[in-house]
């Protein structure tokens, strides 16, 4: 069972065979799924904590402060301490809340993020599900989260929560269009919806560079719409704390609030990972056509590292938005989508079709 940091295909295949030798096929499936599930749980928990820490440090840098410094070196244990605190907090439920839906909502939000994360290719062969319709699956599954938000707002029996939830519903439904259409642009270019196939297609150059202007426009639109989809940055209307106290999760406390909180950060990761996979070459190293020695050096860096460098870059961009821009109003958010992004997107798809038809990119 060789461990190859550049290609996990062989390793995972050997692991599968190793299990098959020792137990029945059905049992193998169960064991493998359990291992994968535990891995994802660990990853989400750890990366979520890291993102919260990163957000605090990034925001501190923008605001000319230091951020957390007391708990652990450079405040590294701060987020862990915060989550321990949240775990120990009392769960308060409003008296007149719809109990079943109120308890269900955080799980729906979490499940949606878990499902979306399953198809992301972290490295070569390091992908749990490699659907033919990978992109379609991600867009479909990630929009389940809004149901959780709507339920949370409705069941809390709080007017602020309801306003927040309705805003979130209107916003995510609209921006889902832009996300999908900008991805459709890239599907036309890549010729496949399979995420591994899309990454393979960027072996010589990333789609962002290869796809000319349409790809660039699609990338910008994807970033804007993706930020809106995660309810972050200038689009955090659903939880606008200066207007709606805390929006849809006003009435949630303790670990249930932590679920919404964590889901927001993992959603940010998913958007960044999709942007990385579709536009920035996924786990592929940075290559320039003729610079042979440069390309070799880049090849030396493992794909996992590449993937996370790119993801963190995109996440940094999204955080930058949040800590710079004021919040939009609800009608402005819808105007931006329906009057600007959507028409631009549709024209962009036409442009991309022209590029592909004329084989301009080859």
């Amino acid at each position, binding site marked *: 069972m060789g461990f190859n940091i550049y290609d996990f295909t062989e390793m995972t295949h050997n692991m599968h065979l190793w299990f098959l030798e020792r137990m029945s096929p059905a049992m193998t499936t169960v064991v493998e799924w359990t291992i994968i599930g535990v891995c994802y749980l660990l990853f989400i928990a750890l990366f979520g904590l890291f993102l919260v820490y990163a957000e605090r440090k990034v*925001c501190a840098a*923008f*605001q*000319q*402060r230091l951020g957390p410094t007391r708990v652990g070196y450079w405040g590294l244990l701060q987020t862990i301490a915060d989550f321990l605190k949240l775990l120990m907090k009392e769960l308060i439920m409003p008296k007149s809340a719809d109990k079943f839906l109120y308890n269900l909502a955080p799980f729906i939000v979490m499940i949606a993020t878990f499902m979306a994360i399953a198809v992301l290719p972290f490295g070569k062969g390091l992908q749990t599900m490699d659907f033919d319709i990978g992109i379609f699956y991600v867009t479909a599954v990630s929009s389940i989260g809004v149901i959780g938000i709507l339920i949370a707002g409705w069941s809390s029996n709080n*007017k*602020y929560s309801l*306003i927040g939830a309705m*805003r979130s519903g209107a916003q995510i439904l609209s921006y889902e269009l832009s996300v999908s259409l900008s991805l459709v642009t890239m599907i036309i270019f890549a010729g496949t919806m399979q995420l591994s196939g899309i990454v393979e297609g960027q072996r010589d150059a990333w789609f962002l560079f290869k796809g000319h202007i349409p790809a660039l426009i699609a990338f910008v639109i994807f970033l804007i719409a993706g930020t809106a989809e995660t309810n972050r940055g*200038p689009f*955090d*209307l659903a939880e*606008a*704390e*200066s*207007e*709606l*106290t805390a929006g849809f999760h006003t009435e949630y406390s303790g670990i249930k609030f932590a679920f919404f909180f964590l889901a927001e950060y993992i959603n940010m990761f998913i958007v960044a990972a999709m942007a990385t996979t579709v536009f920035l070459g996924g786990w592929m190293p940075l290559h320039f056509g003729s610079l042979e020695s440069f390309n070799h050096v880049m090849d030396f860096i493992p794909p996992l590292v590449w993937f996370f460098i790119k993801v963190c870059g995109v996440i940094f961009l999204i955080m930058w938005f949040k*800590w*710079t*821009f*004021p*919040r*939009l*109003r*609800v*009608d*402005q958010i819808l105007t931006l989508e329906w009057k600007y992004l959507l028409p631009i997107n549709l024209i962009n798809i036409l442009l991309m079709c022209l590029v592909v038809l004329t084989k301009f990119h080859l």
Partner: protein
Amino acid sequence: MSELKEIIISSDKIHTDQYLVNMGPQHPSTHGVLRLLVQLEGEIVHHIQPHVGYIHSGIEKMCEAISYPQIIHLTDRMDYLSAHMNNEAVALCVENALQVEVPDRVKYIRTIMDELSRLASHQLWWCVMGMDLGALTTFFYGLRDREHILDIFEETCGARLTVNYNVPGGLMFDIHPNFQKRVKDFLKEFKKKLPEYDQLLSDNVIFRERTNNIGYLSLEDAISWGVTGPSGRGSGFSCDVRKHEPYSAYPLVQFQEKLDTKGDSFTRYKLRIDEMWESIRIIEQLIDNIPEGDYAVKMKGVIKLPEGEFYQRVETARGEFGVYIISDGKKNPYRVKFRSPGFSNLFALNKMAAGHKIADLVAIMSTLDLVIPDIDR
């Protein structure tokens, strides 16, 4: 055709109720314990009824039991961001009643401190204006610069917020030897930092969209509701007490009363930024020319005002602040009434925000620059 008619009729029966939301007493954007009873239809605000009195501390009544120098200490606690101006209003009122002429040095120092307070107040307003609109970074930019002013206050007055620097007849003590140097250093630094405010917020396209043509207040409404300060001047209401009824060293300095007639949120915002530039100008004219002399005139141990009514108004960072004292010749006043700018400004909120969205209500409220203890005296 009849089917269509039916649909119209039946859709008429759908009862879409307006609903009430209590914004406050605990709400992040009211910056204190203010309660707004907001009538909403979906996101649209139909009517706003402010309910005040949650932190009413009875300052006016308390004043009847204490002596005039003691009243000054209470005025700090009303509009704590314009503490020095409030102090000055009472001090001036008592001085005018007793017909005491204070030395020029006092006038100069009072004016400089006024303008420093105004700068500090506007900086804090700018912080929370950004924060109310969701731009959280502005908060720390504003506080960064405000800190320098508070340090100057601390050095000279011993306090950072509730300065208590005025006494009837002058100042409590002379300025710190470092005062002039530190103020000049601060101004030099702040003139570089103020354009950052524009870069971060004023020139931001989202911010412009959020404030342009939002929260219109007409000149008639501004006058009839008594909206003063930058909020009133944004509607073209020339109400700067420093110009119309100059006190302290204001007759001696060159400055403009910034006026605009557009009356929307952005105008009120812009005027406050402009006012900061004017404040810098005023301080620069005075800081090098503080005359030598006493920092206070000798007053009697127990100050008794002659019988009668006395009124003095000053321009605070929020607008016109008035002190109305009725004296029956004793050492404490018979009745004191404060005219606070925040109270009048708050009740014009319904005129401005009705018909806009909830998010705009928050934005408009922050352009009024409310300080709740100023409203609930």
